């Protein structure tokens, strides 16, 4: 047994020596869900990071080394995310890009913090992440607070005075609902109804009746598309004629399948998805050519995250973690697909990147703001 172990160690050392002699790869960790219900989004993000890495490698690599991906599957599950983060932290990655679900990203912050690994959070955007951040994590997706601000700004611009807010009782939609409610009242308007729907509910008639009796200028649904589609359909079916807006969780083409005609004219607040970014045309082309499908909603952010990390490494001039973290913090208007990136004191995006979409002809189009 001992001899076998020693042999193993010896052979490992041998391999290490060999790779040290040749062209060494610089490993980048990508932590996203590749299994479970969110797996498709995770795969989109890996593909996008791969495109960024291919471009960097073709241009001669980084600090003279080739980049390679090490994938950690968090399955959108906090426990598995801790395993994935521990694995990435111990496998000597230079930095990590990823973080899709806020709930599973949260417990990994401490792990990357202890290992002092630069972590670029591409998609997760709960405001809960901010106080837990040890300082090495950078959020390049706007937070729920930014979305609430955008919602208030846009709806006020549409002449809306009275608002009804409906959430689904989970962390994401409740957070967005309460942030929006307080921002809306601060702006001098009134919230005339707040309702919470149960997940998986099919019948919204009771809620719709309460909404109609409160008669708000606009209804804001802060949860996901599947139930949102049913709600929108029933709102219109029962004669509600005001403005309907939905949060980024409802930005899905499936909303139109479920809500049908009723989704026409519905507004959605969304992260900049590739199809609405003129600068991303060549990215979409490469993505289509490489993977045969359209890039998903978080692909541009994952691509930006990788490019941002690479530029920070280059600026740091070494793979020393603190130098990279400092370079990230100093990012000043880094040009990403989704717009320029600079950070606040809290390592969140200095500028809200939310855009407003409008349902037209059974698909999302960019709304006039």
């Amino acid at each position, binding site marked *: 047994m001992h001899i076998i172990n020693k042999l193993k160690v010896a052979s490992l050392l041998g391999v290490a020596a060999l790779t040290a002699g040749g062209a060494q790869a610089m490993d980048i960790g990508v932590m996203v869900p590749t299994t479970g219900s969110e797996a498709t989004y995770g795969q989109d993000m890996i593909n996008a990071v791969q495109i960024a890495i291919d471009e960097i490698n073709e241009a001669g690599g980084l600090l003279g080394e080739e980049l390679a991906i090490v994938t950690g599957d968090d399955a959108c599950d906090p426990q598995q995310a801790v395993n994935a983060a521990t694995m990435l932290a111990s496998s000597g990655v230079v930095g990590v890009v990823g973080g899709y679900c806020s709930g599973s990203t949260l417990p990994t912050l401490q792990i990357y913090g202890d290992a002092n690994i630069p972590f670029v959070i591409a998609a997760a955007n709960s405001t809960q992440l901010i106080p837990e951040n040890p300082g090495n994590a950078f959020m390049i997706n706007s937070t729920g607070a930014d979305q609430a601000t955008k919602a208030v700004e846009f709806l006020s611009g549409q002449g809306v005075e009275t608002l009804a807010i409906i959430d689904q009782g989970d962390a994401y939609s409740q957070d967005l609902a309460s942030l929006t409610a307080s921002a809306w009242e601060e702006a001098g308007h009134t919230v005339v109804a707040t309702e919470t729907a149960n997940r998986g509910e099919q*019948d919204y*008639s*009771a809620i719709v009746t*309460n909404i109609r009796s409160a008669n708000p200028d606009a209804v804001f649904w802060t949860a996901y598309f599947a139930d949102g589609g049913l709600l929108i*359909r029933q709102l219109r079916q029962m004669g509600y004629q005001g403005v309907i807006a939905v949060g980024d969780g409802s930005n899905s083409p499936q909303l139109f399948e479920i*809500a049908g005609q009723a989704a026409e004219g519905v507004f959605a607040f969304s992260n900049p998805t590739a199809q609405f970014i003129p600068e991303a045309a060549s990215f979409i082309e490469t993505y289509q050519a490489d993977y045969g499908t359209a890039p998903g909603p978080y692909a541009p952010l994952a691509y930006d995250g990788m490019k941002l990390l690479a530029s920070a490494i280059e600026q740091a001039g070494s793979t020393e973690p603190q130098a990279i973290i400092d370079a990230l913090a100093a990012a000043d208007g880094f040009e990403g697909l989704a717009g320029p990136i600079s950070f606040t004191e809290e390592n969140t995006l200095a500028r809200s990147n939310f855009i407003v979409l409008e349902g037209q002809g059974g698909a999302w189009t960019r709304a006039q703001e």
Partner: protein
Amino acid sequence: MTAFDVVMQQVVNGLVLGSFYALVALGYTMIFGVIKLLNFAHGDLYMVGGFVGFLVLSAISGIVGAGWTGVAIAMFFSMIAVGCLGVVIERVAYHPMLRAPRLSILITALAVSLVLQNTVLSLTHGQYTAFRSDFGFGGVNLGNLFITYNQMILVGIAAFLMIGLELFVSRTQYGRAMRAVAIDKDMCQLMGINVSGIIAVTFLIGSALAAAAGTMAGAYYGSIWYFMGFLIGLKAFTAAVIGGIGSIPGAMLGGLILGLLESFGTLLPGVGSAWKDVFSFAILILVLVFKPTGLLGKSEQERM
């Protein structure tokens, strides 16, 4: 809308919702009445009914359109298919268990529920399927009260099916046999009644009613998914217990009461819409504590 309008509108909502619950609760109650089984797979038959209805409608909508004719045909075929599925499930999973302890067959029912759910899950990858129908958004205004044509037709269909069932059970020979089997299986066997056949008919009808409700729900709400049977299964069970499990009029009454309670639950100050499920299950507990036989149930006397 005045407060009165809101209340009246909630009555309409409650009646529509309640007629769905009642249709599903009927199957629960019939099966419990005949073989004393809480068929936890019943909500999933509702779900399968929605999917079969969807498939039939997709196949025929090119010919007859996706309006009421199409949905009626889809509902009819879904009722036949799911009714037969119910019979097969009874033959394969429940029949060998009829003489086993109650607990074994109850667990079998849970297993059947999981099999149905996961089969549809793997076929649909857990995605929501849009149930496209051409129902317009039209309706009738009565003052500030608004009732859509869909709601009226749905309640009409539900009432038609429930009255048909009541006539079947009270007026036909099969119905009489069904009631006899519910009272004493062994004695019926001795009297030359085909008990297995009666049980099969019960499953056929109960499952077909669930399928009708599932297809109607799909067409009305516009989307179906593999888990839609779970909550409605629980609600239908609750409705059946409130009305008195084993009693057919009780299931109808229980369904309507539950639908109305839920609609009004959202109006209570300080309770709000998030609590409406809590509210309906709290009523279940109250009924079980104060009138365990349900509103229309008869207490059974243990014979020694």
